[in-house]
C-alpha cells in the first residue's frame, strides 16, 4: 500500500515575483492594515515589473509603493488611503501623471466579483451602486456593471462582472508545504480572492507540518487544491500587521507618509528600503530586530 504523498509547493519570494509577467492581472490580498503582501510588493519593485493590473477591495501602503514604482498601471478597487493618516501619496501623483488609472467599485462589489470568479459564474448580483456615479461613470472597462430587472420579483439588481485574474496573491498566518492555509482573525476578501485566481501564490508567516493542519481541518481557510505556490515570508506584512503575530509599526508608516509627500522623498524611501536591499530579510535587518520584537503580539491579545 502506498502512503498519501505530500506535494512540496514551496518556492522563494524571488521565484514568486519572477512568475508574475509584465502586464499580468493580480488579485491582491490583505485588507487595510491587515496582512498585505508587503514583502512581495517590495520584490516586484526590485524586479522592475511593469504594467500590472491589481484587483482588490481596499489596500494601503503596499499598493501605494507599487504605484510609486510604476509597477501597477491599473486598479479595479473600492478604497485606498493610508488609513487614519491621509491620502495615499504616490497613487495621487501617478494619477495626475496619467501613469495610474482606477476603475471604482464598492468593497462589496469587489468581494462579490471575486466570489463570482471563484464560483465559475460570469457575474454576481448586488444591491449597491444603484442610483450613483459608480454605475454611471466608467474609466476603462467597456462594461463595468449592468442593471437588470429580477425575473422573480421585478426589482432592480446590479450585476457586476466576475474576476478571474492570472494570479491571486495572499499573505496568511500559516500554511503547510502543499498549500493548506490558515488565516487567524478576519479574512477580509481573501477567502474568495484566493479562489478566483488562475494561479495562486500563498505567502505565510510560517510553514507548518501538514499534520497540524489535518488535526483541525475545519480551521483551513484555503485548501491545497486551490494553491500552486507557497512562500515562507516571516514579517512579510511589516510595517503593517498580522493578527496573532505582530502589530503595525506606525512610526515607520508615518515616516513613509511624510517622506512620500514629495517625489524626491518617495525616491529616497524606495532606494533606501527597497531597491538598495537584497531581499526582505535585509529590509528587516535594516529595521532592526529590537524594533520588530517590540511589535510581536502579546497574548491573549492578537496585537
Amino acid at each position: 500500500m502506498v502512503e498519501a504523498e505530500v506535494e512540496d509547493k514551496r518556492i522563494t519570494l524571488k521565484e514568486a515575483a519572477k512568475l508574475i509577467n509584465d502586464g499580468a492581472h493580480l488579485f491582491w490580498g490583505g485588507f487595510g492594515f491587515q496582512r498585505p503582501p508587503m514583502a512581495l510588493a517590495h520584490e516586484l519593485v526590485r524586479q522592475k515589473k511593469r504594467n500590472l493590473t491589481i484587483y482588490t477591495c481596499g489596500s494601503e501602503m503596499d499598493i501605494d509603493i507599487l504605484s510609486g514604482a510604476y509597477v501597477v498601471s491599473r486598479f479595479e478597487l473600492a478604497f485606498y488611503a493610508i488609513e487614519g493618516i491621509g491620502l495615499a501619496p504616490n497613487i495621487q501623483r501617478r494619477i495626475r501623471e496619467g501613469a495610474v488609472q482606477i476603475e471604482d467599485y464598492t468593497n462589496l462589489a469587489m468581494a462579490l466579483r471575486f466570489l463570482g470568479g471563484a464560483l465559475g459564474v460570469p457575474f454576481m448580483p448586488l444591491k449597491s451602486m444603484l442610483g450613483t456615479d459608480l454605475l454611471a461613470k466608467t474609466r476603462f472597462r467597456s462594461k463595468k456593471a449592468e442593471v437588470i430587472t429580477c425575473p422573480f420579483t421585478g426589482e432592480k439588481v446590479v450585476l457586476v462582472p466576475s474576476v478571474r485574474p492570472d494570479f491571486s496573491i495572499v499573505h496568511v498566518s500559516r500554511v503547510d508545504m502543499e498549500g493548506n492555509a490558515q488565516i487567524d482573525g478576519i479574512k477580509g476578501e481573501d477567502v474568495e480572492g484566493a479562489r478566483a485566481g488562475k494561479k495562486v501564490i500563498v505567502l505565510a508567516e510560517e510553514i507548518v507540518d501538514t499534520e497540524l493542519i489535518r488535526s483541525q481541518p475545519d480551521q483551513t481557510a484555503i485548501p491545497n487544491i486551490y494553491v500552486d505556490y507557497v512562500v515562507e515570508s516571516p514579517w512579510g506584512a511589516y510595517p503593517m500587521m498580522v493578527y496573532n503575530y505582530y502589530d503595525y509599526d506606525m512610526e515607520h508608516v508615518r515616516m513613509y507618509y511624510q517622506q512620500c509627500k514629495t517625489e524626491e522623498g518617495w525616491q529616497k524611501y524606495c532606494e533606501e528600503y527597497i531597491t538598495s536591499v537584497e531581499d526582505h530579510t535585509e529590509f528587516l535587518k535594516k529595521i532592526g530586530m529590537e524594533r520588530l520584537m517590540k511589535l510581536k503580539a502579546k497574548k491573549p491579545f492578537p496585537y
Partner: protein
Amino acid sequence: MKNNYVKLGEFTTLELMAVCGARAIKNGEVVFVGTGLPMIAAMLAKRTHAPKAKIVYEAGFIDSNAKDIALSIADSRLGYRASAAIGLIETLGLMLQGGHVDVGFVGAAQIDEYGNINTTYIGSFENPTVRLPGSGGGNDIISSAKRIIVIMTHEKRKMVKKLDYLTSPGFLDGPGAREKAGLLGGGPSLVVTNLCQMDFDPQTKRIRLATVHPGVTVQDVKENSGFDFIIPEHVPTTELPTYDELNILRAIDPHGIYIPRPDQTK
C-alpha cells in the same frame, strides 16, 4: 448622573460631535462603523445608554468590544472579545445587505441637500484635482443600512449644491427616488457637524437644521453651507454632554488619537 450636564468650555467640539453620534444609537441596535469618530461614538453609546448595541466593522469584526483604539477597520485591536471575526462578504453582504444593520455611521467629503455623498473625486471625473479614498464600503453601507448617521466638518465646499461625484446614495433627487432605484436601506437620517445637527424632512427628503451647537447661530450654519436647507421655526441648541458621557469618552481615547483632549489642543 443623568442630565448632569457639563459646562460650556469644559468640552471640545469634537467631543460634542462624538456625544451627538452616540446618542443617535439606540440600545440593542446593530451599528456598522468605520474608524475615527464613528468608532468612538459607537463605543461611547455602548458604554453608556446602549450596552446591548453590537458594533460591526466591515473588515469582518462583529460585536467588537475593543479596549484599545484602532487605526484601521482591519486593526487586530477590534478582534478583542469580538463575537466573530469573518470577512467582507459576511459584514457588507450577509449582515448589511441582508438587512440586519440598523445604523450605518459614515464620514463624507461632500454632501448635498438630499444627503447624497461624495468620497471619490474632487474636481471633474475626467481630470480630478484630488482623488479621494473612494467608496470602500461606504456606498454599500448607505445603500442598505436601515438609517445613516453622517459625521463631517461643516464647510461651504463640503455642503454643496452639486456633488463632484455621487459615490453614495442619499435620497438621490428626492421622494421615492431610492425606491425607484431599487435601494434597500432607509437612507440618511442625521448629519452631525462641528456647527449643528441636521436631519431630513420626511416629505421632501431635503436636509433640515435640527439643532445648533452652543454658541453657533443659524446664520453661522447658513454662511458655512453651500446648499439651501430647511430651517424650522424653532431650532433648539444641541443638548450638552453629561459629565458621565465626557469622562467615559475620554477614557475610550485616553491618548487623544481621534479626539484630542482640551488640554492637548491648547
